[in-house]
C-alpha cells in the first residue's frame, strides 16, 4: 500500500509510545488467547464426549464388585460394560504425582476411539506388568519402552503389605485431548490380583456403552433404580455430562474466562483510544496540511484508522502467539490430575482475536476521526 510509509511514520513518531502500546496490546491478547483458548478446550471436551456412553460407580463411595458387570450387561439396551480402576501415587518423590488407570480387556471395545492400536492393547495383556504411557507422561518422567519403574501408592492396600507397584513400559502412545497432561494405562488384572483379598474383584468404575444413544439417560436411570436397594447402590454419570466442565464443577468457568478476556480488552481499548487521541491532537496541524494538499476527509480518517489498526492487529497476532507458547509450556509444570485444561489455540480463537482487535481499533479511532472531519482547516493551520 503506497500510504503505508505515511502511516508507519505517524506511528513511529514517538517510538517508545508505539512500542509500549504494542506490548500492552500484546499482553491483553495473550490473556485473551489463554482464556478463550481454554473455552475452546472445554468446547472440544463436550464435542469429544460420546452420547452413547456413561460412567457407573458406587453411589456412596468405595468400590463396586466386578460381578455387577454381567448384571448390567444383561439389561436391555446395554451393549457392553468394561471395568477400570485408578491408582494414584508418586514416582520416587511425593511431589511427582501420577495417576494410572488399570483397564480390563473390554475397555478397548468400549472406547475404540483411544489412539491405541490392538497390538498395543495386546502388549499389556501379554505382560501384566506392562504399561501404556502417553508421550507427555513419557517425556516428563523420561520413560521409554522397556523401562521399569515403581509407583508408590499408599492408598491401595496390597496383599503383600507394601505400597509399591512395579511397571514396565510396553509402548509410548499418542496423547489425547481429554487427558491434558497425558495418561498411563495398565492391566486391571495386575492390580486386582495384588490387592488385599477384601478388595479383590472390585473396581472403581464401570464404562457402559449403550446401543441406542437416545436411550442413554433412560438406561442410566434404570441402572440406578435396579441397584438402589442392593448392597452396592450405583450412581451414573453420562459422558456428555462428565465432560461438561460447568455441569461437573457447578461453576461456569466459560463465563469467567469470557469476563476476564473482556476486562483485558477494555483495558486495551482505553489505552489505545487515549494514545491515538493524544497523537492526533499533537498532529492536528499536520492533518490540516494533508487536507490542504488535497487528502479527502475519508483519506485522513483512513490514515487515523490505519494508525490504530496496526498496533491492534499486530499486537493481537503476537499476543495469541505468546499464548500458544505459554499453553505449550504450562502442562510441564502442573501435577497431573490437577484438572487445569490446556488452552487450545484453534482457528476460532484467532478469528475472535482479530475481530476484537479490529473493533478496538475502530472505536479508538472513532472520536479522533470525528474531530478531524469537523476540523476547520483554516483555524487548524492558523492555530500554529
Amino acid at each position, binding site marked *: 500500500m503506497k500510504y503505508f510509509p505515511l502511516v508507519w511514520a505517524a506511528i513511529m513518531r514517538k517510538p517508545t509510545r508505539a512500542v509500549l502500546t504494542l506490548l500492552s496490546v500484546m*499482553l491483553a491478547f495473550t490473556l485473551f488467547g489463554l482464556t478463550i483458548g481454554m473455552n475452546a478446550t472445554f468446547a472440544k471436551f463436550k464435542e469429544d464426549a460420546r452420547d452413547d456412553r456413561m460412567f457407573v460407580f458406587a453411589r456412596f463411595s*468405595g468400590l463396586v464388585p466386578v460381578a455387577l458387570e454381567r448384571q448390567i450387561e444383561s439389561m436391555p439396551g446395554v451393549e457392553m460394560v468394561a471395568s477400570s480402576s485408578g491408582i494414584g501415587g508418586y514416582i520416587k518423590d511425593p511431589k511427582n504425582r501420577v495417576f494410572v488407570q488399570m483397564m480390563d480387556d473390554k475397555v478397548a471395545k468400549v472406547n475404540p476411539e483411544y489412539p491405541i492400536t490392538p497390538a498395543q492393547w495386546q502388549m499389556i495383556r501379554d505382560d501384566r506388568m506392562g504399561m501404556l504411557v502417553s508421550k507427555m507422561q513419557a517425556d516428563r518422567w523420561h520413560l521409554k519402552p522397556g523401562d521399569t519403574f515403581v509407583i508408590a501408592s499408599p492408598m491401595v492396600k496390597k496383599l503383600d503389605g507394601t*505400597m509399591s507397584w512395579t511397571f514396565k513400559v510396553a509402548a509410548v502412545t499418542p496423547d489425547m485431548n481429554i487427558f491434558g497432561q497425558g495418561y498411563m494405562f495398565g492391566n486391571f488384572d495386575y492390580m486386582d490380583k495384588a490387592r488385599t483379598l477384601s478388595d479383590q474383584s472390585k473396581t472403581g468404575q464401570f464404562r457402559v456403552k449403550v446401543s441406542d444413544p437416545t436411550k442413554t439417560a433412560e438406561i442410566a436411570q434404570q441402572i440406578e433404580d435396579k441397584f438402589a436397594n442392593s448392597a452396592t447402590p450405583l450412581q451414573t454419570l453420562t459422558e456428555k455430562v462428565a465432560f461438561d466442565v460447568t455441569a461437573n464443577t*457447578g*461453576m461456569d468457568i466459560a463465563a469467567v474466562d469470557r469476563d476476564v478476556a473482556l476486562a*483485558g480488552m477494555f*483495558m486495551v481499548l482505553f*489505552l489505545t483510544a487515549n494514545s491515538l487521541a493524544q497523537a492526533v491532537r499533537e498532529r492536528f496541524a499536520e492533518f490540516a496540511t494533508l487536507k490542504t494538499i488535497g487528502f479527502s476527509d475519508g483519506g485522513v480518517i483512513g490514515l487515523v484508522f490505519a494508525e490504530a489498526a496496526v498496533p491492534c492487529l499486530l499486537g493481537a497476532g503476537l499476543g495469541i502467539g505468546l499464548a500458544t507458547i505459554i499453553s505449550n509450556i504450562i502442562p510441564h509444570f502442573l501435577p497431573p490430575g490437577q*484438572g*487445569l485444561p490446556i488452552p487450545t489455540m484453534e482457528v476460532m480463537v484467532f478469528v475472535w482475536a482479530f475481530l476484537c482487535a479490529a473493533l478496538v481499533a475502530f472505536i479508538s479511532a472513532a472520536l479522533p476521526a470525528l474531530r478531524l472531519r469537523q476540523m476547520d482547516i483554516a483555524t487548524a493551520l492558523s492555530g500554529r
Partner: protein
Amino acid sequence: MLRQIWIVSALNFKSLPGRFWQSMVIVVGLAATIGVMLSMLSVSAGMREGYAKAGDPGRAIVISKGAEQEGQSAITRAMAPLIAVAPGIAKDTDGKPLADRTLNVGVPVLRADGSKGFTSMRGFSDKGPGVRPELKIVAGRMFQPGKREIIAGVGARIMFRHMQVGDKVILPDGQWPIVGIFSTGDQLEGQLIGDTETLLTTLHKTNYNSVLVRLSSLDSLTTLKRALTTNPALSVDVMRHSDWYARLADQQTFALALLGYIVGTVMAIGALFGCLNTLYSAVSTRGREIATLRALGYGAFPVAVSVILEAILLSVAGALIGAGIAWALYDGKLDLFGNTIFHLSVSPKQIELGVIWAIAVALLGGLLPSIRAARLPVVDALRAT
C-alpha cells in the same frame, strides 16, 4: 529535601486534571487488573477460608496411615477404642473421652439448577456434638442416634434441591427424612450428617473413616501423636485438625489460585506498559514546568520523586476501585465447586495484596520516566514551544 519533594509533587498533582484522560489509563489499567485478579482469587480464597474455619486447632484427626482424604482412610472397629483411650484427649462431662468415630462418604445430590452434583455425608457418633460444639440446630431437631435420620447444613439447603426439613434422602435401605438444619459457620454447612453406626449398617460398610478428637490442650497433640504412632496395633497418622484442613485447602485450591495469579500477572504487565506510556507523556507535557522549577533551583531528585508519587497515587486509586468492584460483586456470595460449598471472599488481606501489586507496578512503571524527568535538559525545555 522533603519540602522540595512536597512542593514539586503538589504542583504535579495540581497539573494532573490537565492530563485527566492519560492518567485514567493508569487507573483503568490497575482497576481492571486488580479487579479481575481478586475476583478470580475470591474462589480459592473463599475455599481456603471455609477450610480454615472448619479446622479447629484444638482438635486432632486420626486417619489410617498415608491417607490424604477422609474417604481414603479406614479405621477398623478394633482400632477405634484403642484410639479413644490414648493420652492427650479431653474428657466429656460424663468422664468419657471426647473422641468421635466418624464417617465421610460421597452422596449424590441435585443442585439448585437441576444438574447432578455431590456432597459429603458425614457420620457422627455419640461424641460428635461434643467434639464439634460449634454445631447448632437452626431448624427442626438433631437426629436421634440409632435412627435413620439426617440433618442438612444451611449451605446445602441453599445450593441443593430437596434439602428442607421433611425432604427425603435416598439411601440403600430406603428414604431417610431430613429432620433438622444445622449451622457450623464453616464448610460443613454444605454437607449432610447422620448417625455413624446406622449409616455403616445401611451402606454395608464396616470401617470408620476417621476418629476426630478434642485435645485436652493445644500442646497435648505431641503426646497423643506419640502414643498412637508407637502403638504396634495401630497404623495411623495424627494431624492437628487445622493442619489437616490447611493441607486439603492447598491441594484443592492450588490450580485455581495459580490461574488467578497468572491472569493477574499478565494483566499487571499490560497495565505496566500503559503506565510507562502515560508517565512518559506526562513528563513530556510537564517539560516546561519541570524546567522552570529546575532553573529556580529545585533539585532533580524531588522531580523524580514527584513522578513516582504520581504513579503510586494513580495505580493505588485504580487498584482500590477494582478491588471495590470485586468486593461488591462477589464477597460473601455462596458458591459451589465440585462438592464444596463456600463463600467467595474478597477480604481485607486480599485488597491489601492488590494495593501492594499496584505499588509494585507504579514503582516499576515510574522508574524510567522519573529518571527521564530528572535528566530533562533544562535550557531546551525552557525554549520549546
